[in-house]
């Protein structure tokens, strides 16, 4: 091999070992320091349910739970999440904690292409864990960091509204 820049090689090759609890399981992986958490989740851990839409914190497609709170996984390096508990759409689905939201989204067709949906669900779950019965205005406000090009948002607002009411009444939305 000839002529490549030794420094570049070193930089490109440098990785750091990080450990997380992802969706309830301990995982360890080697990441480059420049790798974002969303890339690490999608590429290294193959958790492709978390999406990237803007990689600058504007669209909400990459939302995951980090130690129980919704965060943008595109705005964080994987190394910064070392030691954290991370729950993605995959884990939230399997554990059943958002089953009522998913069912209501399905019933009302609050998704089309589905690309925004995992982020929407993470954010909806966050909202309902903070505010027991948000008004429609509050729901719209809370979702205003989640871009959806397909639905026009109304069905999403309706679905979250219905789930909030059902949770308060201790029943299911449908």
């Amino acid at each position, binding site marked *: 091999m000839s002529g490549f820049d030794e420094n570049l090689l070193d930089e490109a090759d440098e990785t750091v070992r990080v450990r997380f609890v992802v969706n309830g399981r301990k995982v360890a992986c080697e990441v480059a320091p420049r790798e974002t958490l969303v890339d690490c989740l999608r*590429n290294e851990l193959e958790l492709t349910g978390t999406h990237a*839409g803007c990689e600058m914190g504007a669209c909400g497609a990459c939302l995951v739970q980090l130690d129980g709170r919704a965060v943008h996984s595109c705005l964080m390096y994987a190394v910064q999440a070392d030691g954290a508990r991370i729950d993605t759409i995959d884990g939230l689905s399997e554990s059943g904690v958002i089953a009522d939201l998913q069912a209501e989204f399905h019933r*009302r067709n609050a*998704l089309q*292409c*589905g690309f925004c949906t995992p982020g929407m669900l993470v954010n909806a779950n966050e909202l309902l864990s903070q505010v027991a019965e948000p008004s429609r205005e509050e729901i719209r406000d809370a979702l205003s960091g*989640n871009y959806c*090009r397909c639905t026009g*948002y109304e069905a999403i607002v309706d679905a979250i509204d219905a789930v909030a009411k059902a949770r308060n009444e201790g029943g299911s939305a449908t």
Partner: protein
Amino acid sequence: MSAPLTSLDRPNSYIGRSVPRPNAKRLLAGRGRYVSDLKLPRMLYAAFLRSPHAHAKIISIDIERARALEGVHLVATGADLAKICTPWTGTLDHFKGMTSSPQLPLPLDRVVWAGQAVVAVVAESRAIAEDALELIEVDYEDLPVVVDIDGAREAGGPLINPGSANNICFRSQLDNGTVDDAFAHAAHVVEEEFSFGRHTAVTLEPRAIVADYDPAAGMLTVHHATQTPYQFQDLYSRHYGIPEARVRVIATDIGGSFGMKLHVYHEDMAVVGLSILLGRPVKYVADRIESFVSDIHARDHRVRARMALDAKGEILAMDVLDLTAIGAFSTYPRTSVVEGNQVIRLIGAPYRFKNYRASLEVIFQNKVQTSQYRAVGHPIACAVTERLVDMAAAKVGLDPFAIRAQNVIADDAYPQTSPTGYRFEALSHQACLKRLHEMMDYDALRAEQAELRKRGVYRGIGIAAFVEITNPSPAFYGVGGARISSQDGAIVSLTPSGEVRCLISVTEQGQGTEAIISQIVADQLGLAQEHVKVVTGDTEVTPHGGATWACRGAGIGGETALRAARALKRNILEIAALILQEQPSALDIIDGEVVDAATRQQRLPIAEIARIAYFRSDTLPPGTQAQLTVGHHFAPQGYPFAFTNGIQGCSMEVDVETGFIKVLKHFIVEDCGRVINPMLVDEQLRGGIVQGLGAALFEECRYSETGQLVNGSLADYLVPMPMEMPDIVIAHVETPTADTELGAKGCGEAGTAAASACVLNAVNDALTPFGATINSIPITPAKVLKALKRF
């Protein structure tokens, strides 16, 4: 409401029923399979070095240092790809006289917009590929830049394509009736110049492609996030010289498309070539900034229009000039002139007048290409027409509803031909107008508006009627020489266990194609919907067809499925009749059981017929060959397009201190013919309206004087977010098309078609007390303040 195809109280009657989409559960669980998720063995990643100049000569390209970087497998320039890919030209024969330069995946010696891909790097990771881009040196020599419409039209100004006489791509004229005469004798004339900013699709998933060329098999497989896999199979085959049967295009889940992902992009063509050069899978996913500078943009029109009326407010004539700037090339294979063509043909469409003249001029400039995006041309035609109608109403002293009621083509006057040459089978403007008036509670809204004005609160009410083009026949592209199908195909099989599988050429982007196809098949065969599996989006599996664009999925794809299902039902009943020793006509299928047609008494499950036909054919009468797989193709005949219509309304408030606009409520009455799934239609309308509201209020690709896109990120380019969007009230009128059994027309573009016109009228209505007007979209707070002379 039209009568349903099958009585809704019969079991398995799904046409007209709001059932959730079976395939949406996967997406809700994060189990979508988007091309951006895909990872194949030995896959490499492409990245592109882009031009920083809007117009420049490429003097030299030095790729040596990039090539030497560890992990880089290939650095390719225009010359490398030109050796294996034939050039393409974005013209169609039926647009007489149109020109556009040949295009290649990467340019050879000249860049024509800022952001154009110039060099490709393929490496073991996207990060390494991007590192390598930084090691490439390109020497450019600036050329004069043509950015705006006026600059492009200046005589003796700089030319975008060397050797051409001017920067004109295409000109077209329409002239019908006696326009000059009508204007000369008119009691009233209203006239205005309108401008429409460039905007773009901003799908949440950017463009994504994985090309996988296997040199041993001579086989190219492309996982391509597109609406139109067959079109790309044909293009990859022809431009790379691979037999069509050895090109497979797979379009799996796709994170939004809206027309944007059916065009040929230079990067996508390049990725196919890179995979051929390397014999390995190559992946490319545009990042958001790349999307803004390389996805097609849309609109960018300046329209001067006038309308003549008699003393009573009857429209007599329209006269229109549309100038549109499309970038440096016309897009391939659908061209960039369809939008302008539809603008001049759709203007005035809801109304009865006969004198119409229009000129269209399509102009090159140094920006990324424009082309078809949701509601091609409609929002412009609609805004121009509907704003002039409102201006006329004010001049004549009529209410906006009254002037429209007076001028729309009467519901009982069809068929009609518009002065622009469109043939309308049956539309329902009168019914829609009436319905909207009730639904908005119009008089109460006006009363409230008057009351609030006294308190310094400025509300606006706007309405806009529209006509939408759906179900296109070959008149759209085929006649122009494009290998874009207007027919669709379906293969329907009874499986050995008595379920049904439908392979169909229309594709799914989340609008619910698979859901409605399964509804139609289940309905027609007499099965529970969960026993129908629909497969789409794989050229190796599904029959050739046009796929999903221009609102043809339900109308054409649905009819294809309907006829295929009926044919399969006939074949099933033939076998059932042999087994039961009955006449086929005496039998029917309900809920997966063959029954007596008259008594509905159950005779035999269709699973039993499948079992006998597949495994015990020896028990059938000699000579019987059960045909439990049926293929069917359907191409629309009769009217060249199935036009739909409707009307939108909105109520909004303008803050005259800040210029901010708050849309309070939006309304639509829409007629898309037979409604297969009301919930899905409503969601198409809502999504379409919100895209239209985005265009009306926020979205614009802004360029500097040197042709740099200055707001190419999701933080700078404003898209509609939940907080700014209103609830949307929907009603339907159903006028099925008689051209098909199903009677369905399209609905996906209706929302976008009239939303911006509606907002434009409402804002102007709100500003009436100030004598201020706005005729430019998007209507930003700055434009409002400028109109109010406060800025």
